């Protein structure tokens, strides 16, 4: 009896851990998506490609280039961190480049036309990334390996702990950023591009910053989506994480960073819970995968603009 | 029905327009007689329905007690009801009095009291409001019919007002009680019955109502409208022709060209929505016969030039080539009496598929087989241009007092710069002393309504009508109009100058809308110029010249320079004494209601000189 209760307890704990682990990845991807949308009015269908590309760049820097390991003999965590930061800078530049080349000409165009452009970007990026990744997953060479801590009732991998810490730090950083001068300028731009421009905000720079932040967050999400225990390296299917993050984005509200975090975590928890508990044959195969969408649809029915989303002002 | 009458009776009978329309309704009841645009759709009225409506309206008039010789006035834009009431009035031997829709209240008062109208048609609230301002001064006025129901709330309890549909209802019940009453009245019609009073626009003095009787009209039917020879291939107007009615129907030209032509020859009348939409309506209707005043031709001409400037490089190139082509063709034709020469024919075959066909489609004259201009002088370049496009445009000359009957450029014998030859068989002469044109024929009017003195003045002692226009013979066959007698400028140097010739030359520029040449008893000529706001505005926008109002735009140095260019160009065509030395821009757009223009958009020179006295004094005093 007691053993059974113990097992149930640990299943619950395990579910919460894996739900949070999934949720933080969703939250990171959703935050990047929302920041890009908010600042530039672009629905970025290439966000999955950004995540994959970022993770691939990380693998390239850390493993193929072996930077900075080839020059310096640093402790694994420090060395790897430098690799990741380097990769993040490269990803940010990539994001800026993409925005400048493909999306700047579309400023002012219809939302969905712009979305189609990002879809085209997605095709191009994914084709190239897939070609370069090749047939096998590319290792992230993270310093944690398969190490884990056993808390008795639940086992947590070191990568998951790192993931929680990094995600929390990034959420705080984004929060701080939005209170900075640039962040306020970005909020102004999101509110009214013309007015922001009139106030002397360099809207082009804001777009670039938004894409840089979006690409960085996507990369971090991509990295954590590609390490143990989730994966053993980056593979093109990392991109699919973003489609799974869509309900999180909508749930929180398309233009709410806070919503992205809350949405990401709740969707991750709901999905993990469904995976653990809703496995009766009646639910069929893969029910947990649609739970986020069900939750999203119910929320939308009650709050048509998501939990934290701004209700669009309807004018005649 | 007709045939049942005795030939003797038929001989006595006069062919009024009412009778002609009844005949049409009998012979081709289901053909389209009228077309008007209602909520975007051209509604059609057949001849039988047309006649039916006329009959109801006539009965309605009878029920209102309209008697022989009573005046029925119509104050409305062109619309079927105008024509129906007009014909109905003629049917009951009444007299139609037309008012310009732009007539302000004061003029309404004058016209109605002068004519002593008993029944009045006020189209809509606007006209009714004008009427109501002055109605207390109109003791003769008994009933007011209105066509538009909207806005008549305030007059609902006024027993004088009757809505058109109710009016027809009254006619219907009157007909039920008195069947054949209208026919009876029609049978009594006499050639001497005055059928309409056409008020002259009155460039000087108050308008005078010219009386036209049935005999005048009948002469016009036979000799003018049915004169096949004036049209290409000797094919006169016929039921397959389409006419666009858009000039005020109270003007004699439009009445002859629309109502009368349609009644005599069975052509279909298409009513334009308003004068502003003429260009669009033209494209829709693509009339086969088209009469327009010079102002319209100038506008069409200007729009072609303007739009081609906006076109893409290739189209612009093509257009400039084809305009050059059109000029060559036009000149060739003009020199050949309006017919093609071999060379112009070949050139036309090149230009037609490339541009002319599409261009004519765009301006609405693709199917136009005969077009005319009159009522005011026109620049020869414009006629030449349209001839180049293949539009047979002829200038003709006539006036209210002679039922539009004087000269015409007959097909194949046209001469550019003239108003054509006198109609065969009419009395036509140019007074050798004054150069005034005088006519005498059965179409000449009976006299001015209630104005025996003016009537007497209108005729020479030997009974010829004084037209007031100075003319001269060209090649002994054609007549050239120099100007109104009263407008001729005699400079202090003693030279006679015709201002309208110079003014028209100025107005060929798309930038000039109005021009008035001044110089009577002065040392030199000057001009007041009004710009075409749209085109000059467009021109300014292209050059990034900011402007606000009409006045502001007109006073821009760049615009002054532009107009100076136009004047310099015109000066080069005239002798030195006819050159304009100075000019000033008109500070406002001229308007009928402000008294600067007549209802037919002619300059009221005297009032203009009064109004812009300061400008004129400035031109003759300052050194610059």
């Amino acid at each position: 009896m007691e053993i059974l209760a113990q097992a149930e307890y640990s299943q619950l704990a395990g579910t919460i851990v894996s739900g949070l682990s999934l949720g933080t990845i969703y939250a990171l991807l959703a935050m990047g998506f929302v920041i890009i949308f908010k600042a530039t009015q672009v629905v970025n269908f290439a966000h999955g490609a950004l995540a994959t590309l970022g993770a691939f760049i990380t693998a390239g820097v850390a493993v193929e280039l072996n930077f900075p390991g080839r020059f310096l003999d640093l402790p694994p965590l420090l060395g790897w961190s430098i690799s990741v930061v380097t990769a993040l800078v490269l990803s940010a530049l990539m994001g800026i480049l993409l925005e400048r080349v493909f999306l700047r000409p579309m400023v002012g165009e219809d939302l969905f036309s712009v979305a189609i452009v990002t879809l085209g970007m997605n095709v191009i990026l994914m084709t190239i990334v897939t070609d370069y990744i090749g047939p096998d997953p590319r290792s992230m060479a993270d310093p944690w390996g398969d190490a884990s801590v056993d808390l008795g009732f639940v086992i947590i991998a070191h990568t998951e702990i790192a993931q929680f810490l990094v995600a929390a730090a990034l959420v705080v950083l984004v929060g701080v950023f939005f209170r900075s001068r640039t962040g306020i300028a970005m909020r102004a731009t999101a509110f009214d591009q013309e007015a922001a421009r009139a106030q002397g905000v360099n809207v082009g720079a804001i777009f670039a910053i938004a894409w840089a932040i979006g690409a960085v967050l996507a990369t971090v999400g991509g990295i954590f989506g590609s390490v143990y225990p989730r994966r053993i390296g980056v593979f093109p299917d990392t991109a699919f994480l973003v489609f799974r993050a869509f309900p999180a984005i909508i749930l929180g509200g398309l233009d709410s960073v806070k919503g992205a975090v809350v949405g990401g975590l709740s969707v991750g928890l709901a999905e993990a819970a469904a995976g653990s508990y809703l496995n009766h044959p009646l639910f069929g195969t893969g029910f947990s995968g649609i739970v986020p969408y069900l939750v999203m649809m119910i929320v939308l029915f009650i709050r048509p603009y998501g939990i934290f989303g701004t209700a669009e002002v309807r004018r005649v | 029905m007709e045939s049942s009458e005795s030939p003797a009776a038929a001989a006595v009978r006069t062919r009024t327009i009412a009778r002609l329309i009844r005949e049409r309704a009998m012979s081709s009841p289901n053909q389209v007689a009228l077309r008007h645009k209602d909520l975007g759709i051209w509604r059609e009225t057949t001849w039988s329905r047309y006649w039916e409506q006329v009959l109801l309206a006539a009965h309605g008039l009878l029920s209102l007690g309209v008697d022989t010789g009573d005046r029925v006035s119509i104050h409305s834009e062109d619309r079927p009801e105008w024509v129906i009431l007009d014909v109905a009035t003629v049917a009951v031997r009444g007299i139609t009095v037309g008012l310009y829709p732009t007539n302000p209240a004061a003029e309404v008062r004058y016209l109605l009291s002068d004519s002593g109208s008993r029944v009045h048609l006020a189209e809509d609230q606007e006209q009714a409001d004008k009427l109501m301002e002055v109605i207390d001064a109109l003791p003769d006025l008994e009933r007011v019919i209105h066509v538009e129901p909207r806005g008549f709330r305030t007059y609902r309890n006024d027993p004088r007002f009757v809505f058109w549909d109710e009016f027809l209802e009254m006619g219907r019940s009157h007909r039920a009680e008195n069947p054949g009453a209208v026919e009876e009245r029609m049978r009594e019609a006499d050639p001497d019955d005055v059928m309409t009073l056409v008020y002259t626009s009155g460039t000087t003095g108050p308008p005078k109502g010219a009386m036209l009787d049935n005999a005048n009209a009948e002469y016009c039917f036979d000799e003018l409208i049915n004169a096949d020879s004036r049209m290409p291939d000797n094919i006169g107007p016929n039921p397959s022709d389409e006419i666009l009615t858009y000039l005020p129907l109270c003007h004699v030209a439009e009445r002859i060209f629309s109502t009368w032509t349609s009644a005599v020859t069975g052509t279909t009348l298409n009513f334009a929505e308003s004068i502003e939409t003429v260009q669009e309506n033209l494209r829709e209707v693509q009339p086969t016969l088209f009469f327009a005043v010079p102002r319209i031709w100038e506008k069409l001409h200007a729009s072609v030039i303007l739009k081609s400037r906006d076109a893409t490089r290739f189209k612009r190139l093509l257009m400039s080539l084809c305009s050059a082509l059109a000029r060559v063709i036009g000149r060739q034709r003009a020199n050949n009496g309006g017919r093609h020469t071999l060379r112009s024919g070949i050139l036309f075959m090149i230009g037609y598929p490339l541009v002319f066909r599409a261009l004519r489609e765009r301006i609405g004259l693709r199917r136009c087989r005969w077009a005319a201009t009159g009522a005011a002088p026109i620049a020869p370049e414009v006629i030449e241009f349209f001839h180049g496009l293949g539009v047979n445009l002829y200038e003709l000359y006539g006036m209210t007092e002679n039922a539009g009957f004087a000269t015409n450029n007959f097909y194949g014998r046209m001469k550019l710069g003239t108003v054509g030859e006198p109609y065969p068989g009419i009395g036509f002469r140019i007074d050798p002393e004054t150069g005034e044109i005088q006519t005498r024929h059965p179409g000449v009017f009976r006299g001015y309504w209630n104005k025996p003195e003016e009537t007497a003045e209108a005729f020479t002692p030997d009974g010829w009508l004084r037209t007031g226009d100075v003319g001269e013979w060209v090649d002994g066959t054609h007549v050239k109009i120099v100007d109104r007698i009263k407008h001729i400028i005699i400079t202090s140097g003693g030279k006679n100058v015709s201002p309208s010739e110079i003014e028209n030359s100025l107005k060929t520029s798309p930038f000039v809308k109005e021009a008035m040449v001044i110089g009577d008893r002065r040392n030199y000529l000057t001009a007041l110029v009004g710009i075409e706001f749209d085109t000059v505005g467009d021109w300014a926008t292209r050059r990034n010249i900011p402007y606000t109002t009409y006045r502001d735009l007109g006073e821009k140095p760049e615009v002054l320079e532009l107009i100076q260019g136009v004047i310099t160009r015109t000066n080069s065509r005239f002798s030195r004494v006819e050159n304009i030395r100075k000019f000033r821009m008109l500070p406002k757009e001229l308007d009928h209601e402000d008294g600067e223009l007549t209802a037919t958009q002619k300059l009221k020179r005297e009032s203009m000189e009064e109004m812009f006295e300061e400008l004129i004094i400035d031109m003759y005093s300052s050194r610059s």
Partner: protein
Amino acid sequence: MKTRFKWLAMIMALSLIAAACGGDDEAEAPATTAAPVTTAAPATTAAPGTTAAPEEATEEATGETMAEEEPMMIATDKGVDLEAGVIKVGMLSDLTGPFGPAVNLLVAGVNTFWADVNARGGVHGLMVELLYRDTAYSVDNHVQFFEELRDEVVAFGHSTGSPHTIAILPELAEDGILAIPLTWYSGWSDPDLNANLLSHGTSYCIEAMNMIGYLSDVSGENGVADPTLAIATFPGDYGLDSAAGAKIAAETLGLEIVYDGSGQIIPSQDNAPIGNAIAQSGADIVWVAANPTTLAEVYGAALAQGLVALWSGTVANWSPAFVAPDSPIKDAMTRDFYGASYFPPYTDDSPGMQNLRDLMAQYAPEVPPIDYVIEGFVEGMILFEALKVAYENGDMTQRGVLAAAKSMEEVDFGGIAPNESYVGSPNERLQRQTWINRPDPEGLAAGTTAIGTRVIESYYTHPIAADYYFEEACYKLS
């Protein structure tokens, strides 16, 4: 366009490497060439009799009526141009879809094989030209490209995907065209399906039987008498066929299935709950038929929960990245994993494999030493044989090639794969051998193995598989 986005639609038997025996008593097989020797079944065709020595055979068969220098009369219709000396072969490949990376390597093998054949005179002097079409693993593209090539080629060198191949079966039958399916679906043995197909290799179903049987023996040796079994697979023919095999084995051996996740692994979704569930079930043996990333996901989750079991799966699950030096699961995998494959590894020392390695080095030096290319060679060899026989039969029409292919009695791959036969009953032809591999991180690091495994059993057939009698597909595609 749709399928171009379908990155993760995974499935299919990525099982691209494999083997099978065959090389036992046929020792005389020529060691110098990659081309195997075939004997055609004499009765299957009305064409002139063929033997292993084509030139002489032709002369004999045609007798004195034919002048020696006069060329043989060859019937052709589509895809063969005798004057230009070209044979065109269609390739319906997933080059940019979910299996693109693997299929591209496989295709490198195919290209190398035919480059070598053409360099050495082609098929009786006819050069073989391959017309590739990228289906991106979509059924509608597959059908469309089939239609595009249908009248251009003499046969299809491969056709990726089981539902895809089944979709074109009616048209294949209509025209009598031959195709080599690039899947190892057990249903290909069904006479209803294989009339136009030349399947090869051990099916997913039998592979699972061999592996479960083997692991049950290993468990017994380890002292676990009644091991419990957990199954987790993709949906579709690959996953479900292989799950069906595992279940047949479990039933025969009386193993308890404590977790049945057949068809539960969905590549686009979070599969960690499956790993958690397997960990909860406490299974001793786990059978997975998925792909490397989803296996890693399931395995990672179960491992994080502390499960230690014998993990096994098809070759399509395996990636050298598992045991790469910086892999987080290198040690655990080395401890836990058993892999099945149906041909020997690239490093095998058979003469055929030696020749293959030489050719790869000569024609495609940039391609890493990887087992996928073996499948490319196997396909090429089958088709090469079929074309040769058809030529010798004097009928290189589409139907002629099909008939020739279906008459091949013993196709010898020179040790790079088990021999295949295309005559006889399904059960006589059934391939039952499996190679059993263990992870080998040292070998990978040292470069002695390309794929990070070493063979522990060759030509292995567990009694369950040996006794298996084919009646219908283990998993039926309707």
